């Protein structure tokens, strides 16, 4: 076997023969979960059966229309800045596809976002059955509109007419050929990529003309993106600066650090709660931060996406660390100014040496603002 059709593995040591059949050990576990008994049903959807609880801005409406038209003719890359309302931009496209009895799926790399998204989409499409398929929610995987993690796409071989792939630049999808293959194998029609930070490969496809491109560099409240402020100094000084900043500000601050160990140590030093992938009561801490019961929080990149906090400032300590690439820094700085009532905020990148990724992030932010506002 040259390569596995399911996961595109080319490692010859991963293939073995059993009962006259070649099997791939890397994706063997996925095959056993296929359940052929579940079937989709025919649905009827009218214009009046779905809708957002608020009006889109004129820019959002324009972009939404562009996506709906372009998605008929091929795959689309939707490049929209953090907080631009990417979910709302594709609602019309989903509605149109469902009205034409097409099968629509929404895939996202991270599990916790699947559940939130399912709840939001169910409120928009009230007459349809919107199901979440992810770890812990795999008994029912057929519905009118399917929201799943990218891992779960292996169940839907040649199934979707339209697949919305949200945040393809996020872990674990990014760089994983097996998951990319699952996604490509699951679609017979077109894919709509939603991201604020497209990859080099996607930009290349756009330049070649094989991927259509739609952009939105403006947030709904017409506020420009916060441009991060760089501070380069030696380590102890940065920590001291951070301590003073946290003491003197009366606003909530999210402090991003590169490692779990640093988050825990800094948390003990400053007496501040920390959220990492190893934190057990993450949801509780996030809830406390949202309800302003926690003034500041120290976290790793686990909170760089998918969370919206009102009136929050961001500090990235040791932003030159290799964990923080350009996409990650753009996502982190995108946590600021997401609330209509607090559209501005501070974003600081503290570094002990200069970093190309930081400079690129700042350039990208300025470019987006220039495109949207000419500033």
């Amino acid at each position, binding site marked *: 076997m040259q390569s596995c059709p399911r*996961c*595109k*593995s*080319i*490692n*010859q*040591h*991963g293939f*073995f023969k*059993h*009962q006259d059949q070649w*099997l791939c*050990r*890397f994706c*063997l*576990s996925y*095959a*056993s979960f296929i359940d052929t008994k579940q079937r989709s049903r025919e649905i009827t959807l009218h214009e009046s059966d779905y809708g957002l609880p608020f009006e889109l801005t004129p820019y959002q409406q324009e972009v939404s229309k562009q996506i709906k038209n372009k998605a008929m003719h091929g795959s689309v890359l939707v490049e929209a800045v953090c907080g631009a309302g990417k979910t709302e931009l594709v609602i019309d496209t989903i509605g149109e596809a469902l009205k034409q009895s097409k099968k629509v799926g929404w895939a996202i790399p991270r599990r916790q976002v699947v559940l939130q998204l399912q709840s939001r989409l169910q409120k928009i499409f009230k007459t349809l059955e919107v199901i979440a398929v992810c770890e812990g929610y795999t008994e029912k995987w057929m519905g009118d509109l399917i929201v799943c993690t990218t891992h779960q796409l292996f169940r839907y071989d040649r199934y979707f007419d339209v697949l919305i792939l949200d945040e393809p630049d996020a872990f674990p999808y990014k760089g*994983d*050929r*097996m998951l990319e293959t699952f996604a490509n194998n699951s679609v017979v029609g077109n894919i709509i990529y939603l991201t604020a930070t497209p990859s080099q490969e996607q930009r290349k496809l756009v330049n070649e003309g094989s991927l259509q491109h739609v952009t939105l560099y403006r947030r709904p409240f017409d506020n420009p993106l916060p441009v991060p402020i760089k501070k380069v100094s030696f380590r102890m000084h940065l920590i001291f600066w951070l301590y003073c900043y946290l003491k003197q500000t009366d606003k909530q601050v999210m402090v991003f650090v590169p490692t779990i160990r640093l988050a825990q140590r800094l948390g003990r030093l400053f007496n501040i709660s920390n959220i990492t992938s190893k934190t057990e009561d993450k949801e509780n801490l996030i809830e406390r931060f949202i309800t302003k019961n926690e003034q500041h929080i120290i976290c790793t990149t686990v909170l760089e996406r998918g969370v919206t906090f009102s009136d929050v400032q961001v500090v990235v300590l040791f932003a030159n660390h290799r964990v923080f690439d350009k996409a990650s820094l753009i996502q982190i700085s995108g946590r600021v100014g997401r609330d209509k009532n607090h559209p501005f905020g501070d974003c600081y990148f503290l570094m002990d040496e200069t970093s190309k990724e930081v400079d690129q992030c700042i350039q990208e932010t300025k470019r987006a603002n220039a495109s949207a506002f000419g500033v």
Partner: protein
Amino acid sequence: MHPRDQKSQRICLWCLEALYHDATIFDLFLKRDICCQQCDQQLRSKRLIFDIGALSCEAHCIYDVHIERALYRLKEDKDIAIATLFFKHAKIQLKRNKNSAHVLMPSSQDKIVERGFDHLHHMVKQHKLDIVDCLRKKDGWKQATKSKQDRKAIKQNIILMETERIKDKDVILVDDVCTTGSTLLTAYELIKPHAKTVRAVVFAVHPIFYEDTKRL
């Protein structure tokens, strides 16, 4: 780069990572064949001795989430390539002499048909044992799905098919996991009247059961 994307990258049979992903300087002098260093350590026998009544048992390791996952991969995902790893370091425990016979605990027939293989046979294949398939499970009985109380009912659901090949022999009962010991005890009671000696070798034992029955 993931081992999946490298054509000739040798991989660990157990964890599917690159074979030398955890290599140390000592690996310059050692040749790894099928397992990386971490997995090889995990698979080394810890020789856990315990007794189920009069039956003397020896387990390789404690049953934990990693073993559960590996067994699931073998039995449900049908990853037969992993089978030889389970008793890889069990040559001494399974040692045979002229007078020995190895009796594998039976799986249900419909499971064997569904899987396409008997996993225990593949687990011990490398040691070229003198296997005597003298025990059969009645159809429809799935021990793994039963509660602790119901597992005791296995006595009515295993039958001894023949005694000729175990008569006056040193019988070694072999199983993958010992959870409550009901299966092994039933097999022991069926075989003991005919065999010279009976002992058991299992790959993993449930930690609570081991604590209750270990030999001090």
